[in-house]
């Protein structure tokens, strides 16, 4: 985060302003990505009028950064009506999309509406790998065509690549592709559990050896020695700090109006169909609980070697059963980075000592009494 943005976020935190919101417009999707955490059936999405009203409330509450995501946002027939309304309210808007429905006309309209950036999921530079993840033949070509349409309009495009077993070998290819297209790219080795708690998608995540390789790739992490160094012990300031911005300056609203601290933190704090956005933000007991947590309160983590630079996600910890506990996926990342198991990983591993024993007594040897 840039210095000025950090300063503004600190001010928003002091003032209790929800600086940044992700609003998912739909969970419906025209791709079926193997790692997706969503149920794509429509269980009663907010109407156009409800979403516009919500946007009015968000603007009034001080929300500045608005991410419109899904599901696939372009499946909503009222998408541009919603986007136009949001821009009239002068939100800074980022779109997350697979982009396969974006052609020249849509790209021009997005430009005219002053969207800040468009994040597009690309899993491989090879169609046979990307399309096998989205389960839609031809999807890579369509997404790449869309990136070109958007770029030709002068828009900022970011390729987002989730690293899994299926595309582990292809991240360099995706980065080269991004460079060729003149767009930014991000790489995330985190596969998240389904929102209903089903953890089967985690089997798609890369193993420790792959993570180690990733974290020792200088072109990805910069100075490898510094990146993989054992972090310093935490000072009092670090122990008193907040674990994450979720619920503090940021939050998430689902297509059904459910209000969570973050898209990865499915703790229902209220519903915007029943309460005003700002009332949930200010008064939700669940948000108050999230806001009360400091690093020193994290069980295990506060004593862990990695506490000062761990990527621990409170939402993933919550989905593991304890919002004050560790998130094992992040423990695994810390382990892959430094070679030192976290407190959480140590407690999970059975003691090796005396795990397998063979007792033998050669024939003819007297057994001591």
């Amino acid at each position, binding site marked *: 985060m840039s210095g000025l943005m950090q300063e503004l976020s600190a001010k928003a935190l002091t003032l209790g302003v929800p600086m940044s919101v992700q609003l998912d417009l739909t969970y419906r999707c025209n791709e079926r990505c193997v790692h997706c955490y969503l149920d794509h059936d429509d269980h009663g999405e907010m109407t156009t009028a409800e979403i516009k009203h919500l946007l009015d409330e968000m603007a009034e509450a001080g929300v500045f950064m608005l991410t419109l995501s899904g599901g696939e946002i372009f499946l909503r027939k009222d998408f541009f009506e919603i986007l136009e309304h949001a821009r009239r309210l002068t*939100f800074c808007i980022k779109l997350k999309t697979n982009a396969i429905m974006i052609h020249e006309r849509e790209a021009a309209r997005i430009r005219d509406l002053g969207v800040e950036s468009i994040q597009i999921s690309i899993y491989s530079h090879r169609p046979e790998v990307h399309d096998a993840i989205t389960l839609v033949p031809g999807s890579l070509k369509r997404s790449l065509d869309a990136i070109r349409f958007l770029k030709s309009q002068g828009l900022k495009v970011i390729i987002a690549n989730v690293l899994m077993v299926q595309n582990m070998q292809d991240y360099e290819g995706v980065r080269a592709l991004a460079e060729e297209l003149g767009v930014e790219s991000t790489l995330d080795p985190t596969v998240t559990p389904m929102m209903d708690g089903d953890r089967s998608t985690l089997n798609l995540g890369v193993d420790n050896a792959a993570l180690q390789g990733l974290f020792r790739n200088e072109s990805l992490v910069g100075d490898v020695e510094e990146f993989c160094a054992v972090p310093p012990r935490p000072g009092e300031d670090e122990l008193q700090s907040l674990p994450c911005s979720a619920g503090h300056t940021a939050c998430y609203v689902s297509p059904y109006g459910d209000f969570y601290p973050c898209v990865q933190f499915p703790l229902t704090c209220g519903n915007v169909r029943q309460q005003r956005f700002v009332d949930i933000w200010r008064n939700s007991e669940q948000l108050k609980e999230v806001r009360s947590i400091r690093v020193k309160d994290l069980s295990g983590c506060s004593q862990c070697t990695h506490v000062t630079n761990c990527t621990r996600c409170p939402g993933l910890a919550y989905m593991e059963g304890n919002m004050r506990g560790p998130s094992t996926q992040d423990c695994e990342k810390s382990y892959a980075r430094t070679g030192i198991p976290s407190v959480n990983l140590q407690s999970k591993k059975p003691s090796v000592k005396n795990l397998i024993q063979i007792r033998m007594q050669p024939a003819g040897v007297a057994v001591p009494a």
Partner: protein
Amino acid sequence: MSKLYVARNTRVAARNLDGEMMIMSGKDSTLFTLNKTATIIWQSADGATPLDEIVERRICPEYEVDPAAAMQDAETLARELAAHGILDVSENPITPANSQPANSQPANPPAGESR
């Protein structure tokens, strides 16, 4: 002396945070913050009110300031914001039809953050 009209560019993102405006340029995603005085000018920049009138009616009554100096500062600010594509400046009233799209501004502002 000719009048100067100012209008908020419709392609930027903006929000008031405790009296200070946060603005994200639609041209290059540069983030700006305006102090309280600059925020008053930004909020008054409707394309129809000349800048000297904004300074006279909105700035001078609020602050102990020489009107000529205030006008000079306001014009400098307006031109700087115009160079970044976040404010449109013209010697004629600005309507939505004749306002400039943010990424067609000719100026070449410095990269990075501004205040």
